[in-house]
C-alpha cells in the first residue's frame, strides 16, 4: 500500500512559520526512494531543530548506508519548532519526513539519534505528532519500532518506557543487520507481530529491548537488579564497534542543505575512539579503542566530499584530532592540495601542546590567525590530575607563548566547574592561569593587543566513566564559584580587561545529570515536563529549570528518590547502576580503580604509547587499537 506525501497539507502552513525552507527537504544528495519497492523503511530522527540535526554525522552516515541497501529506504525527520507544531496540531498534520514528506508512523523503524539527553522531550513531541503512542507497551503492529542510538543511548533507562529498542555504539553495521532481521520477518508475513521481531532483535545480544528486562528496586530506592523477563533474552547487551574505518568511508555524498545550519562544512572523521583517558569524558570511554582512518582514505574522502558538496570548509573530526599518527602529513598534504583554492581546513578538538601550533599554522596558511582553543578543563594542577588531563601549567604557558608569538591574537581556554573533589581554590586558579597567559602573550609579542577568553561550563557525571559513582556538584556551589572566578578576573587591573569570560549557569547541568544517570523512574519526570510544555531543552530560551524541578516533584512523589538522589549523591562500589547490564566493554573493576586513582591524584597514560592498562574493552569486544603510520603521503591532485 502506497503512502501519500503530506506536502500538500503541509504547504499552506509553511507560509505562517519561521524559516519554512527547513521543512521542505530536497537537499543536495538527499534521496527519495520508491516506497513500494522497499521492504524495510527507516525514518531517522535527530531530535533537535533542523539547523542542528542536519549536519549530524551519525544520521548522515546511516541515511546513506541504509539507502544504499537494496529493498531498504531511509528518510529523515527533525524536531519541528513550536510555531509549526501548533499549526500541525490544529490542522491534523502528523510528524513527517523531510525527504518524501511521508508520515513517520508509516515507517517500520523510527531511529532516533541521541547525542545528548536534552533531546528526550523532542522525541516525545515527534511520537505524539506522529500518532505513535508514547509508551512502547501501548503500541500496536501499526506502529514503527522506536529505536534509540547515539551516546545517550548508553543509558537509555530514563526513556526506556518510550523505546522499543536501543543500540549501543557504532551504527554502520548494526543498522544493516537490523534491516536484514526486519526484512526476513516481514517476508515471512510478520509472524508473531511486534514482540516476535523485537525478540529476534534482542536475542542477538546486540539490540537492547527494555521491556524484556525487569528492574527491581531496594526499599531505599537503589536498583536491586535488572533481569531478563523471558527466556532467550541475554542478560547483557553489548556495544557495536566498526573495526576498519577505511571500509566505511561515509559520508560519501554529504547532505548540503538550503537552510543555514550550525556547521557549514564537510566533515571527515579522521579517527574514532580516544584512549587519552580523561575521566570526565564519556565519549572517550565508550568509543574505545582508537581506530584511525588512513591518510589516503582521508584524502579521498575530502576530495570527493568537496566535489559533491561545494562546501568551502573541511573539518577533520575526532575526539582529539592532533593525535592521529599521521596528522602532520594529513594537514600538510591537504593544505598543499587546496592551497589557493578558497578551501579552508579546520581541526577542532586539539590538545594543549606546541605541536598543535605547527598544525594550526599549517591550516591557516592562507587565512588569518584569529583564535586558537585549548581545553585544560581543570584550573589547578591537582584538578587536572584528578580528571587525568595531563597538561602542566608550564605546558600551557609554553604553548600559548608559541601561539602568540606566531601571530595568533586570541586564545580560548575551556574549563569545567564542579569536578569531583573540586574546591574553591581550584576554580580560582583559572584566574591566575588566565593572567599568566596574557602576561606571556604580552611578553612574547611586545603588544598589548592580546586576548584570552575563559569559557567554563558545569560538569555532569556520565555513565560508563570513572566518575559514574561521583556526586554531582550542586548548582548553588557551581554558580558561586563561577561568580567568584568572574570577580577575581575582573578585579585585576593589569590583566582583567584582556580576559573574556563566558560561562553557563549550573542549573541545566543538574537536569542533564538527572537524565544522564537516571533510571526508568525518571521517565515519568520527562513525560510530565513534556506535558507541561517542555520542548527544545538544549536551547536556553526554551529550557526551564523550574519546570523540570516541579515535574520531578510530582512525578517522583511516590518514590523514595528525588532529583538530589540522582545527581548530588555519591554511589558506593557495589550499588547496581541502572546501566550495568549495558556493556561498553569497560571492566567495572577497572572503572572503579580509575575512580579511586582519581581521588588519589594518580594519572594514567594513553595505551597507544604505553602498555595496556586493562580497561577491558579490547578483550571483551574482540577489538584492537588500529593506528598508523602507514607511511603514505597525499599526492597533489591532478588537474584535468
Amino acid at each position, binding site marked *: 500500500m502506497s503512502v501519500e506525501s503530506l506536502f*500538500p497539507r503541509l504547504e499552506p502552513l*509553511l507560509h505562517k512559520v519561521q524559516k519554512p*525552507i527547513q521543512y*521542505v527537504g530536497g537537499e543536495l544528495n538527499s534521496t527519495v526512494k520508491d516506497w513500494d519497492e522497499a521492504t524495510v523503511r527507516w525514518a531517522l530522527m535527530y531530535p533537535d531543530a533542523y539547523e542542528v540535526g542536519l549536519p549530524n554525522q551519525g544520521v548522515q552516515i546511516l541515511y546513506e548506508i541504509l539507502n544504499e541497501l537494496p529493498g531498504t529506504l531511509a528518510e529523515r525527520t527533525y524536531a519541528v519548532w513550536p510555531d509549526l507544531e501548533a499549526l500541525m496540531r490544529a490542522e491534523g498534520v502528523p510528524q513527517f519526513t523531510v525527504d518524501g514528506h511521508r508520515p513517520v508512523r508509516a515507517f517500520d523503524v523510527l531511529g532516533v539519534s541521541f547525542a545528548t539527553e536534552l533531546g528526550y522531550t523532542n522525541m516525545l513531541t515527534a511520537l505524539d505528532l506522529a500518532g505513535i503512542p508514547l509508551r512502547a507497551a501501548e503500541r500496536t503492529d501499526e506502529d514503527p519500532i522506536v529505536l534509540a542510538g547515539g551516546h545517550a543511548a548508553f543509558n537509555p533507562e530514563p526513556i526506556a518506557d518510550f523505546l522499543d529498542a536501543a543500540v549501543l555504539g557504532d551504527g554502520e553495521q548494526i543498522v544493516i543487520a537490523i534491516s536484514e532481521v526486519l526484512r526476513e520477518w516481514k517476508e515471512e508475513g510478520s509472524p508473531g507481530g511486534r514482540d516476535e521481531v523485537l525478540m529476534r532483535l534482542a536475542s542477538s545480544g546486540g539490540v537492547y529491548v527494555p521491556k524484556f528486562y525487569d528492574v527491581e528496586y531496594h526499599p531505599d530506592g537503589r536498583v536491586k537488579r535488572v533481569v531478563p523477563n523471558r527466556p532467550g533474552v541475554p542478560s547483557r547487551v553489548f556495544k557495536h564497534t566498526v573495526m576498519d574505518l577505511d571500509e566505511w568511508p561515509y559520508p560519501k555524498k554529504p547532505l548540503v542543505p538550503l537552510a543555514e545550519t550550525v556547521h557549514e562544512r564537510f566533515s571527515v572523521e579522521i579517527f574514532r575512539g580516544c584512549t587519552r583517558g580523561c575521566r570526565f569524558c564519556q565519549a572517550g570511554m565508550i568509543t574505545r579503542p582508537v581506530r584511525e582512518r588512513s591518510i589516503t582514505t582521508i584524502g579521498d574522502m575530502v576530495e570527493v566530499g568537496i566535489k559533491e558538496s*561545494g562546501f*568551502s570548509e573541511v573539518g577533520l573530526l575526532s575526539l582529539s584530532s592532533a593525535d592521529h599518527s599521521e596528522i602532520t602529513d594529513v594537514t600538510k598534504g591537504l593544505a598543499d592540495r587546496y592551497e589557493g583554492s*578558497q578551501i579552508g581546513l579546520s581541526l577542532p578538538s586539539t590538545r594543549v601542546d606546541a605541536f598543535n601550533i605547527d598544525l594550526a599554522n599549517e591550516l591557516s596558511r592562507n587565512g588569518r590567525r584569529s583564535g586558537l582553543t585549548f581545553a585544560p578543563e581543570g584550573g589547578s594542577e591537582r584538578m587536572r590530575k584528578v580528571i587525568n588531563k595531563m597538561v602542566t601549567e608550564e605546558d600551557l604557558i609554553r604553548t600559548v607563548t608559541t601561539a602568540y608569538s606566531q601571530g595568533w591574537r586570541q586564545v580560548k581556554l575551556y574549563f569545567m566547574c564542579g569536578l569531583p573533589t573540586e574546591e574553591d581554590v581550584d576554580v580560582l586558579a583559572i584566574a591566575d592561569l588566565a593572567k599568566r597567559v596574557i602576561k606571556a602573550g604580552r611578553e612574547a609579542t611586545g603588544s598589548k593587543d592580546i586576548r584570552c577568553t575563559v569559557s567554563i561550563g558545569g560538569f555532569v557525571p556520565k555513565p560508563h566513566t570513572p566518575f559514574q559513582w561521583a556526586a554531582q556538584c550542586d548548582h548553588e556551589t557551581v554558580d558561586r564559584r563561577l561568580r567568584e572566578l568572574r570577580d577575581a578576573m575582573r578585579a585585576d587591573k593589569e590583566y582583567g580587561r584582556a580576559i573574556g569570560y563566558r560561562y553557563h549557569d549550573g542549573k541545566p547541568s543538574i537536569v542533564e545529570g538527572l537524565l544522564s544517570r537516571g533510571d526508568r523512574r525518571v521517565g515519568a519526570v520527562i513525560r510530565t515536563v513534556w506535558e507541561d510544555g517542555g520542548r527544545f531543552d538544549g536551547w536556553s530560551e526554551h529550557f526551564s529549570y523550574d519546570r523540570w524541578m516541579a515535574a520531578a516533584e510530582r512525578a517522583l512523589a511516590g518514590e523514595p528518590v528525588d532529583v538530589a538522589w540522582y545527581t548530588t549523591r555519591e554511589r558506593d562500589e557495589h550499588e547496581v547502576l541502572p546501566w550495568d547490564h549495558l556493556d561498553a566493554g569497560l571492566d567495572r573493576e577497572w572503572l572503579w580503580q580509575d575512580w579511586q586513582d582519581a581521588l588519589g591524584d594518580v594519572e594514567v597514560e594513553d595505551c597507544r604509547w604505553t602498555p595496556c592498562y586493562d580497561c577491558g574493552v579490547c578483550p571483551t569486544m574482540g577489538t584492537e587499537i588500529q593506528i598508523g603510520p602507514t607511511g603514505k603521503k597525499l599526492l597533489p591532485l591532478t588537474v584535468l
Partner: protein
Amino acid sequence: MQRLRVRYAKRGRLRFTSHRDISRAVERAVRRAGVPVAYSAGFSPHPKISYAGAAPTGVASEAEYLEIGVSRPCDPRRLRAELDASLPPGLDVLDVVEAQTGNLADRLEGSVWELRLPGADPAAVEHAVREFSAADRVEVERLTKKGMRRFDTRQAVCALAVVNGTGTIAGQETVQPCVILRMVVRHETPAVRPDDVLMGLRLVAGFAPPSPPEVTRLAQGPLDAATGEPADPFDLDRAGGDR
C-alpha cells in the same frame, strides 16, 4: 574581468528559500561546477556574485537575476548548462549573457506578478480589482526593517487584472479551482510587494484570500513606456554583444 548575468527561476518547494539560502546555494553550486569565480581581495575574500532584487521568501519566481564575476572568460551557454546542472532542482538557470553595459539592477524597473488564489470567489476578486483600479491612492501599513511604514500601493501598480478562472497550485498534485490575478508593479521605495496589493484589495473592497496565495514573479525588466510591460533586461547586453 568578465561579468556574466544570470536569469534563474525559483520554483515549487524552493520558493521557501530566503535570499541568504539562495546565495549559499549559488556559491556552492559555482564551486561544484568549477566556475572560475573571481574573489574579492582582502582579509576574508568573497566570491564576486551579486544579486538584484530577490523575491521574498515563500514567493516563486521565473525571473530572478544575479551577476557573477569570473577570473577567466567563460562561454555563457556553457555556464548556463553547468550552473543549472549544479544547482538543486527548483533553482533553475534560464538564461546567461555576458554583461556589456550598465548596471543590471538599474534595469529592473518593474515586475510582473501572478497570484493564484485557491478557493477565492471570482466575482469578489473582479470587484476588488475594479475598486482598486478606480482609486487614486490605496495606503497600507507594513512592518519593515525601519519600523511600521505607511505607503501608497496604487501608484506603483501599472496593471492589475484577473486572467482566467482556474489553475493548479505548483508543488501540489491535486487540481484546485483558483482565481489568477496578474499585476505589473513598478519597483519603488519602499517596495510595493504583491501582499501589499492584496492588503490594498482588502482595504478597498473587503476582499481577503481564503487560503495563502501562491505568488510567482513572471518577469522583471525595464518598463516599456508604451505598453507598461517589462522588457527583457538582457536585450541591451545582447544588442551590444555577439548575439
